[in-house]
């Protein structure tokens, strides 16, 4: 845009410049189209290679065994064995695993909506001694590898008798909700104009009121993002359920799928069917929350 110049006297020169700029505009347009085409090609090529595994997963899930173990590979199953799905559900108690996963996930989402913003307010809009030091500590805890705390936490839960229940997968979420979430919310709160807070204080509002009535409503996109992240994180959580859930009847989708793998090693059609089934909720969640996602990350600004 900067190449073209504006506000020129309408003179002979400008008419000649108009002619030159006409040609230039055409060249630019051609360049733009070329650019578009090249980029689209690259994108489509990459996109197809990213899509391929998906398609292969679905394709395999609808094949019969003979069609799976053939070379060269067959793309379109013939016949389409839709019955693989009900069969897979026979071996793979999807609904029970789904219920378990939902149970755990819902609590985690609730915690993610309530807690990090609450804590972040304490770090963002209240001035008190030691605040910044504690915030630094919060940041540094992100660097502590999970393995260091994993074992003693397990021992702790074992002594409480909570191993083999859902509690270890739910309760910790209410104690802070993760340093990253708190960090994001705090950054977001910092972008809310100080004047609003000051005005409320002048009116004699308590911090609780400010938090509940001013900060929260303004933070809906950020909180929604946290909720979505928590949903996805809890849904996919593997190590937690692996360590703490012992009865198959309690398994989540993630663990259940792996369990299914150990039982039915090479039954690829069922495995792919089960994998597809397990992946669908995530795809749905993504489409529902798409806008929230991108918005949320931009809003909270992961910089500095």
């Amino acid at each position, binding site marked *: 845009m900067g190449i073209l110049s504006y506000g020129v006297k309408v003179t002979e020169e400008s008419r000649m410049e108009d002619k030159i700029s006409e040609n230039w505009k055409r060249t630019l347009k051609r360049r733009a189209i070329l650019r578009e085409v090249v980029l689209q090609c690259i994108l489509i090529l990459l*996109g197809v290679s990213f899509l391929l595994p998906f398609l292969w997963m679905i394709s395999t899930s609808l094949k019969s065994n003979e069609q799976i*173990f053939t070379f060269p590979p067959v793309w379109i199953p013939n016949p389409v064995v839709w019955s693989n799905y009900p069969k897979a559900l026979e071996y793979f108690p999807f609904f029970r695993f789904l219920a378990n996963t939902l149970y755990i996930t819902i609590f985690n989402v609730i915690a993610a909506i309530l807690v990090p913003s609450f804590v972040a307010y304490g770090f963002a809009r209240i001035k008190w001694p030691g605040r910044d030091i504690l915030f630094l500590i919060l940041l540094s805890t992100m660097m502590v590898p999970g393995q260091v705390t994993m074992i003693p936490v397990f021992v702790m839960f074992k002594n409480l008798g909570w191993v083999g229940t859902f509690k270890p997968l739910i309760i910790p979420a209410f104690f802070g909700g993760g340093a990253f979430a708190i960090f994001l919310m705090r950054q977001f709160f910092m972008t809310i104009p100080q004047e609003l807070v000051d005005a409320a204080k002048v009116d004699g509002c308590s911090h609780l009121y400010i938090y509940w009535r001013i900060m929260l409503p303004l933070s809906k996109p950020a909180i929604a993002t946290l909720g979505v992240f928590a949903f996805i994180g809890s*849904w996919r959580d593997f190590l937690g359920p692996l360590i703490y859930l012992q009865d198959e009847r309690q398994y989540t989708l*993630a663990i259940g799928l792996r369990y299914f793998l150990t039982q039915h090693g090479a039954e*690829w059609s069922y*495995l792919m069917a089960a*994998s597809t089934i397990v992946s669908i909720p995530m795809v749905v969640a993504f489409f529902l929350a798409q806008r929230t996602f991108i918005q949320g990350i931009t809003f909270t600004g992961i910089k500095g």
Partner: protein
Amino acid sequence: MTRLEKGELRWGIFFILPWLLGLIIFTAYPIVMSFYYSFTDYSIVQEPFWVGLDNYKTLIRIDAIFWKSLENTFYMLGLGLPLSLIAGLLLAILLNMKVKGMAIHRTIFYLPSILPEVATAILWVWLFNPQYGLVNAILSWFGINGPGWLADPTWAKPALILMGLWGVGGGMIIYLASLQDVPQELYEAAELDGARGWQKMVHITLPMISPVIFFNLIMGIIGTFQFSVQTFVATGGGPAYSTMFYGLYLYYNAFQWWKMGYASAMAWILFLITLLMTILIFKTSAGWVYYHTESK
């Protein structure tokens, strides 16, 4: 302290209480305890039994698998991590351009990264099947006789790297967001000075998003040492320990062989390593990370 200050202090603590309690219960106390456990033999079925430096000595002097797991992990650090960082960045730059149908493209690239890792691992085990898998089938179109991938000790790690690259969308989104934050004026000013695409990239884009690259790098290093779901499901550490990574070996020691003291020692060694690497990167960061915002 004035009454106002005291009041603010009380409010401050009140709000951060959940996190503070969590810090003590789930972080501080466990860190101390795991340090203690690392000097014991603790099978959890029996009480911890003090053994001094034995765990550390065994790890460093006798345990060949410990060294193999370090070797494997550094392989990933050296090859897998840079690849995924660069791929994520390139993809983000590509997707940041004004091309039609961008929403669809972004979806396609981001989606794999939110699928449950178990599902992707199982899918890729099938894709990498040496006889019937799609990967070798495609290779055969080009006349290449594909290797054994996950069944071959030499190719198992590259296979895992490829598997990981499919999920690069996660990092890409973060880069994308930060790319969109780069002020347009900088680009316009550069164009007026006659800068071309390549130069704009190196002198504007990269420095402006360097904090994000920095962040991703550190998180990536820590992540490579963690338990990897995909490795656990796809290979379990084999074949022949070629994919036995540090986090995986730690898990096995702790939760399958019930050597929690030993595993705690591994955890602390890990802590040290990541700390050293983080400090190193921090020190060198002054040279290439450009802080254009400040956290108040």
